[in-house]
């Protein structure tokens, strides 16, 4: 993976900084740090900037969508118009000029329609190669099926046939709309309604592509399903939409990875992920989010404003969110669980690293509605540089959720004196048989540990990486193997140059 990345760094931001000053090392590291900041030269069809009903009709038309979906979009758009951008959260969200964004970019659009899968631009293949995601099935990570989304369009889904033997549907959502319209219509917006919040409404109006997964009854998905998202084109927003339905007695593990090129301006990413878990089914959703965080001065970077929610509709259903967040200039994200089915279980494991000027306001909501429901929240925040890292979470136990239990643990680690670490948990308990526990600690990195490492000849930087990885271990361990290795590397890289 590293080898491939080396080629990828050339295109962007190679300007030489003159200073021989002591900060140079730090700066070099900071620049080096974002390894996925290259752009790809492919012919990309981008529709004109701006947002209005015609643009939405155009998107819908380009995707050949049925009328109900167009109406879904228009209704969301009309609602969105009535709302204002939210100001809550411990982040400084800039005024976003929604008219300065192009809402559709298709890097696969070469010559009209054509069969996209067979004619993938070689440049595009190279892009995903650089990212370490080979789309050729023979090169693929063992046991992982990949759906790759660049800008607005799903580029290729691997292993589709093999999965379809088991009745598993894994394809882009656009394809699903065409081939499985009933399923999509039944579940789309049923977990995150278009009027859920400002960004959900925006996404519902303009969502471009994303993955669709359906696991039929009593099926254990034989491989990890995976989507890689990449923003490439300039001045585009990415509004992907993922819908996962895991039917009775089934199991699936789903991975999501994200990268973007380095650009001076902010890029908007407003995604929705909806997960439906039926009786006795289990879904594991893992994210390694490494969107471009902006440079060391806080210029550019992705505004990551996503709504992720799982609906544990069935009895004994299980859902776990695991996320490693190192990227984005601003993250506003609360993967949540509605524990509707009796005995359902939900987990949220999160590591969020912020450095330089990054701001993250992330956490989860656990809404207990069913009886004997259980939820666990483990959050590890690591702040460095001038960043602000907040955990925000809600645990609500409804009136009829007898025997509900929640355990939350939110720890923050501070590296450096310019950053902030904040914890804002909310607990609303409407049932007297519930047991809810929350604990949180905030401390700085242990200097004795650092010294011990130093004495053994380990550099401070390396030691920080080691200690942080140890600190985040509870969460990393929840990731599938290939992802865990990647996540560990990311953590170390994200924090280079922060101590000493």
């Amino acid at each position: 993976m590293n080898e491939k990345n080396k080629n990828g760094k050339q295109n962007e931001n190679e300007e030489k900084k003159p200073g021989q000053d002591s900060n140079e090392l730090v700066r070099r590291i900071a620049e080096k740090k974002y390894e996925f900041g290259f752009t790809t030269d492919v012919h990309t069809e981008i529709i004109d900037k701006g947002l209005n009903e015609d643009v939405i009709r155009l998107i819908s038309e380009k995707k050949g969508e049925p009328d109900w979906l167009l109406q879904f979009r228009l209704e969301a758009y009309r609602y969105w118009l009535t709302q204002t951008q939210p100001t809550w959260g411990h982040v400084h969200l800039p005024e976003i000029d929604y008219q300065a964004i192009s809402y559709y970019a298709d890097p696969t659009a070469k010559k009209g329609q054509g069969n996209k899968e067979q004619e993938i631009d070689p440049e595009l293949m190279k892009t995903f190669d650089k990212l370490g995601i080979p789309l050729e099935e023979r090169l693929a990570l063992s046991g992982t099926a990949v759906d790759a989304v660049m800008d607005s369009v799903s580029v290729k889904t691997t292993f589709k046939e093999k999965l379809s033997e088991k009745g598993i549907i894994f394809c882009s959502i656009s394809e699903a709309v065409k081939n499985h319209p009933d399923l999509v219509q039944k579940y789309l917006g049923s977990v995150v309604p278009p009027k859920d919040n400002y960004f959900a409404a925006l996404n519902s109006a303009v969502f471009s592509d994303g993955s669709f997964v359906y696991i039929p009854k009593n099926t254990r998905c034989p491989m990890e399903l995976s989507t890689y998202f990449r923003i490439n084109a300039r001045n585009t927003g990415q509004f992907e939409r993922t819908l996962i339905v895991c039917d009775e007695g089934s199991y699936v593990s789903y991975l999501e990875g994200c990268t973007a090129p380095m650009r001076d301006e902010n890029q908007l990413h407003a995604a929705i992920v909806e997960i439906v878990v039926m009786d006795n089914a289990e879904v594991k959703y893992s994210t390694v989010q490494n969107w471009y965080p902006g440079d060391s001065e806080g210029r550019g970077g992705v505004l990551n404003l996503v709504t992720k929610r799982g609906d544990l509709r069935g009895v004994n259903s299980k859902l776990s969110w695991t996320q490693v967040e190192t990227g984005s200039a601003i993250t506003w994200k609360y993967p949540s669980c509605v524990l509707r089915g009796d005995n359902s279980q939900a987990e949220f494991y999160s590591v969020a690293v912020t450095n330089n000027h990054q701001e993250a306001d992330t956490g989860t909501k656990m809404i207990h509605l069913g009886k004997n429901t259980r939820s666990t929240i483990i959050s590890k925040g690591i702040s460095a540089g001038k960043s602000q890292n907040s955990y925000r979470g809600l645990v609500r136990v409804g009136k009829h959720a007898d025997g509900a239990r929640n355990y939350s643990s939110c720890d923050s680690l501070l590296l450096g004196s310019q950053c902030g670490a904040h914890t804002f948990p909310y607990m609303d308990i409407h049932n007297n048989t519930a047991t809810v526990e929350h604990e949180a600690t905030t401390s700085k990195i242990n200097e004795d540990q650092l010294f011990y490492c130093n004495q053994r000849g380990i550099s401070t930087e390396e030691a920080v990486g080691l200690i942080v990885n140890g600190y985040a271990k509870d969460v990393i361990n929840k990731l599938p193997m290939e992802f865990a290795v990647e996540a560990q590397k990311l953590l170390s890289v994200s924090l280079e140059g922060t101590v000493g």
Partner: protein
Amino acid sequence: MTSELQYIELYNEASDLIKSKSCPVMNTVRDEAFATFQRLGFPSKKVERYRYTDVDAAFAPNYGISLSPLTVKPSAYIYNIQEAPIDVTPYYHRIADHTDAITALNTALVHDALLVYVPKNTRVEDPIVVDNWLRGTAATMMNRRVLIVMEQGADATLIINDHAADKQRFLTTQVIEVFCHDNARLDLYEIEETTPLCSRFSNVYIQEGRDCNVKHNSITLFNGQTRNLCDVYLQGENSEVTLNGCAIATGSQRIDNNTLIRHEVPNCTSDELYKYVVDDKAVGAFAGKILVEKDAQKTSSHETNANLCASSDARMYTQPMLEIYADDVKCAHGSTVGVMDEAALFYMRQRGIPEAEARTLLKNAFMGQVIDQIKYEPLRQRLAVKVEKRFRGELEKCDDCRLCK
């Protein structure tokens, strides 16, 4: 959002009267405070620090405002502000939050204030006790203001008891400002034992200099609707603050405590423990923020909120928060909402203790942790008895003989 109108009208009509009964130091800030209130209106539930209390509804009924003069029995250290032995200008309405609507309303309407003043290096052995008796023949609004000035090295214990003497609707707003100069110590107890007809909105602001130690104990034994705010500003190094809270709510009582501890300088310690037992249809809310500013290195802070929901209709909201901008700190908070320990209940019942009694013992033990923090021994003993009575349902039975306690 219409309740503010009657207060705006009231002020427009009665401000001259209020001013005539008041003193220059209070009148100087009055109009501005009123303008603030007029601008803000009552906070809706969208205002973060008021999300658990419906302020508008509480202020909606028509109350008569009490303008009777504050009578202070002559005793050392307690004064009517109009007879203050010191210039209170540097203190009055200085640390109170000028962006809080309740504080603004209080500042606009209050005509008299109590001053507790302990001079330099004075150690007051016996506790200073303030008994507030709510009395009235009609629904009455009381606006109460207390200024506490602890000069350098002063040391005192202050107990403020809130009672309602009449079965009447009472609405109280209260603002307490506490100034602790270097090396001062203060143990402040606020004990509310009123009736379900009472609404209380209390804002306490505490400022500490160097090497200070303040303990604030908020005990809500019996009430109607209570919303207590306590903000602490640690502005001198090596100071400590302890916030203790005991909240017991039954029936349809509501208790909402909202605290903020702001560490502005290095090397300070804060400790916070709030416990709630909510039963019947009662609602409890706790929100506590520890804020550590950028330069407040070596801060040590610990916050715990533990709650027992004793009935299926009771509700508890809890929100412990850490907001930290310094790196060399040790901060932790924990919050639990739990049920009674079934194994302990069973153990006690196996020994023959009836279930109801076993539950009372466990509730009492749960709250005991807060009561044990009370430093002043006679008060601790008295409150231990009262808390137990409260859990046995014996406190409210004594409704009619409240005056003779």
